[in-house]
């Protein structure tokens, strides 16, 4: 039975799509069968970041509407045979996405893979609500600045009230992923510290991904950063986060200014 994991944030532009692609690829490399689903109807990006934009025939809305079957819409990654993409529609309206339609698709996918990663759109409206609706676990991507943290807090509140699990009285397992962490600015006190963020969000930390040019380069060539430059700091941070997601204990490394030199500043066990 697959685990449904939603990658959400509230705030836009924090790194949800990048993280979905990077961790989806890392999970597939670890031998898991992964389907990544783009829920951002009208502003789809996951297909670009995965380099599949020229192979999109059918999309999520087509499947909801019954125009296409799920196998027709799924796009297999050319580099990783365990990674599949269900793209969003770029032309249709968000209203075409329905609760039962999404539920049907998730149920159908559950039988045939290990992980269903739902890339949520920004905001707290219908698209974001539907992306989290059937989730078993959630990764809340946060940037270390005040507006992002407050929006993430809002989303955490919604994960505890608007999901099917919450309605049944069960818990959605939540993890915080701090992305675009800039060590230099943190040192100057211009960004929120890790401790501040965790104190406000009161949710276990999955990983810290540094601000990195490698991420930009990777999305420009249509490849997840974990595939494109696996030895980069960002890619290794994503790989560590993926290991933690799979239950391994990996010491938390706080990225520092000096490139290539990783200081073991604290051994923080992900709870």
């Amino acid at each position, binding site marked *: 039975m697959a685990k449904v994991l939603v990658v959400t944030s509230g705030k836009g532009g924090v790194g949800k799509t990048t993280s979905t692609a990077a961790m989806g690829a890392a999970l597939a490399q670890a031998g898991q069968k992964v389907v990544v689903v783009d829920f951002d109807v009208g502003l789809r990006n996951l297909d670009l970041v995965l380099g599949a934009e020229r192979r999109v025939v059918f999309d999520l809305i087509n499947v909801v509407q019954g125009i296409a079957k799920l196998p027709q819409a799924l796009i297999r990654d050319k580099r990783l045979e365990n990674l599949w993409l269900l793209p969003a529609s770029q032309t249709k309206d968000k209203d075409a996405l329905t609760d039962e339609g999404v539920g049907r698709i998730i149920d159908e996918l559950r039988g045939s893979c290990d992980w269903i990663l739902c890339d949520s759109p920004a905001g707290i409206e219908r698209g974001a609500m539907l992306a989290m609706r059937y989730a078993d676990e959630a990764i809340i991507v946060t940037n270390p600045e005040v507006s992002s943290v407050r929006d993430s807090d809002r989303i955490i509140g919604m994960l505890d009230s608007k999901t099917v699990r919450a309605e049944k009285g069960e818990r959605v397992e939540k993890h915080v992923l701090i992305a675009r962490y800039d060590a230099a600015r943190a040192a100057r006190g211009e960004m929120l510290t890790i401790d501040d963020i965790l*104190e406000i969000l009161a949710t276990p930390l999955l990983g810290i991904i540094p601000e990195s040019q490698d991420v930009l380069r990777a999305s420009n060539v249509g490849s997840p950063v974990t595939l494109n430059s696996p030895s980069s700091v960002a890619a290794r941070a994503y790989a560590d986060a993926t290991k933690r997601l799979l239950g391994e204990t990996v010491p938390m490394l706080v990225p520092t200014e000096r490139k290539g030199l990783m200081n073991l500043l604290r051994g923080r066990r992900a709870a």
Partner: protein
Amino acid sequence: MGESIIMEPSVEPTRQLIRLRGRSYVAFVFAPVVPIVGWLEEVDATLARSPNFFVGKPVVLDLSAVDLSPSAITHLVKSIEQRNIRVLGVEGVDAEHLDSSLPPLLTGGRACTLQPPRPEKRDTKPPQMTSLLLDSPVRSGQSIIFTDGDVTVLGSVSSGAEIVAGGSIHVYGTLRGRAMAGVNGNPNARIYCQKIEAELIAIDGYYQTAEELDANLRSKPAQARLDGKIMRITPLN
């Protein structure tokens, strides 16, 4: 022998016999006097003392002391009914003055003794105070409203969240959002927290925003109480 044709005598449907019976009832009689406006004010005063007394009780209007035109009678009956008093009948006028939309004309009423309405005792029992316990943080956007008593939070209250309580508010964590205590007119309610970074604090409607919070108190354990109209926020140690 020919077939005998049996004919049933036509059966008349049995008729329900309507039995007319007589019964007498006791009704309150309202006897308006001029000026009608003044008399209606007296009625209102009686109603104010005992608001529920006339509800459901039959009332008869005795118009013998006043000389009202048919339209004036209609207006008077409407005024009484607006006060939630149902008029059962009218007496002391000529039949021609009453049209079919008005209560019927009554005759042959006999005086009898009645209990005057006693002012009702107000329910002075204080409401039951209970308390609400939340054992997880209150997230941004969440609004906890509990007018029946105290609210205790085992965790922080995020920025953009709010707690509205009839009693006091206790936050075992950081209060970053809005806390409004004593909302049902309870000026003795207090707000306690382990770290005060609130956006807004209010007790019994008197509020103070984060701007007005003393810089020395920020991020420290604090309690807020109302002193007359002034919010006193003091360190809690």
